[in-house]
């Protein structure tokens, strides 16, 4: 059976799979938090906030993720900031942070689209009823954006799972790293990479089907 080699080296492949999942989840949660704040900044009535939000999005979208990861892992210690004293924890946190910052820019664009898509009348009615700007966001605008924003967030999530493979370049022992290590030890390149491929497909194909189903279900006009 293709991919059998994964069972010969379970401590590499399956630990790698677990690390991939961990970075994906942490990265996605972080990305959603960061992205929502940046999107709020971009639609804010305060012009400096809008500019900062715009700069964030353009910077993190137009630079490669791997450059950002290397900066967090190698550059920050030079500037005095270390994520942790333990190397493994340090690279794991650098990877998760990099994922969150990079994908946060994409989440910001999607959430901004959602915020702008909320019916203007709702916002005007909320403000004229005496709700403050923050209360309006909290009780009227944000809840309504969530519905329209979930399918694109699902797509970003799939991209995030695939992008965790870049963490292997800074030393995180995730799935692609496992395949590389096994290959360098046994020279069974095809088997090792087929195993990694199948495990990645195990993650991304169900996610893809789920997102497609969500999109069909939530036919909110985008």
């Amino acid at each position, binding site marked *: 059976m293709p991919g059998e080699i994964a069972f010969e080296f379970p401590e590499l492949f399956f630990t790698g799979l677990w690390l991939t999942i961990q970075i994906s989840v942490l990265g996605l949660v972080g990305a959603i938090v960061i992205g929502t704040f940046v999107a709020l900044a971009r639609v804010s009535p305060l012009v400096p906030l809008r500019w900062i939000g715009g700069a964030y999005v*353009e*910077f993190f*979208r*137009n*630079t*490669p*993720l*791997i*450059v*950002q990861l*290397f*900066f967090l892992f*190698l*550059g920050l210690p*030079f*500037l005095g900031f270390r994520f942790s004293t333990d190397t493994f924890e340090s690279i794991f946190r650098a990877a998760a942070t990099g994922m969150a910052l*990079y994908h946060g820019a*994409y989440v910001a664009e*999607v959430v901004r689209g959602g915020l702008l898509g909320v019916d203007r009348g709702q916002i005007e009615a909320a403000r004229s009823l005496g709700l403050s700007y923050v209360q309006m966001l909290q009780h009227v605008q944000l809840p309504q954006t969530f519905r329209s924003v979930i*399918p*694109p967030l699902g*797509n*970003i999530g*799939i*991209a995030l799972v*695939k*992008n*965790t*493979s*870049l963490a*292997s*370049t800074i030393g995180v022992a995730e799935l*692609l790293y496992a*395949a*590389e290590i096994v*290959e360098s030890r046994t020279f069974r*390149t*095809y088997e090792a*990479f087929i195993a*990694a*491929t199948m495990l*990645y*497909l195990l993650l*991304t*194909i169900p996610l*893809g089907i789920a*997102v497609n189903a969500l*999109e069909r279900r939530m036919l909110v006009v*985008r």
Partner: protein
Amino acid sequence: MFADPAIWGFFFEGVRETIYISLVAVALSFVVGLAFALGRLSRKRWIRWPSIFYIEGLRALPVLLLIVYFGLQGSALFRPIFGPDFELPRFWAGVLGLSMYTSAVLAEIIRAGIVSLPRGQTEASRALGLSHTQTMRFVLLPQALRLMVPAMMAQLTTVIKDTSLVGTIGIFELFKQGRTIYTQFFNPVEVLLIVATIYFVICFALSQASRRLELGHVPRAARVKIQDIALRDQAA
């Protein structure tokens, strides 16, 4: 370090390699992607199903995995054709990995364009006696490709960012050049910021150009599909 013009020469060589890889990869991906897009639209099941497997399978994998695989195994893969001593140049291993992934993405973009055209176009051209191939060639594809130019330019931007990944198999594109420089001079912060700025300038210029370039009205369904593709398949 920065006063030394030789260093800037290194950066320039990296940029040149990056642009070269991107253009070759996009050209190759376009041809292959077009073939698979048309394959996925075929009425013959024995063409359609393999096309679906190719496109969806490659879209679901990380680009880096493909690049590293071809970097390690590329030479061995082509030995049956080119003889037992064949060594695949690293440039082509990187281009191959990048192109396979990008061809799947471009196939989806092109298919989105074709499918979004009004059904009347197909019906009219078939009614006028044009065959399926002629319809594609003279009626549907010219319109679809023109509509998809902004999306394809956006994909070029993504490919330029993805070339940063081929450095892992030893090609001296911009990011790898940067790594070579800062391992010698111990200044990763400055070098990485310079590299990031260069990527930013190139990609930002391209994305602004693609935003302003609209060669025709793109129907909402295609617009949504392209946004989904852009979000799901952007790979670093």
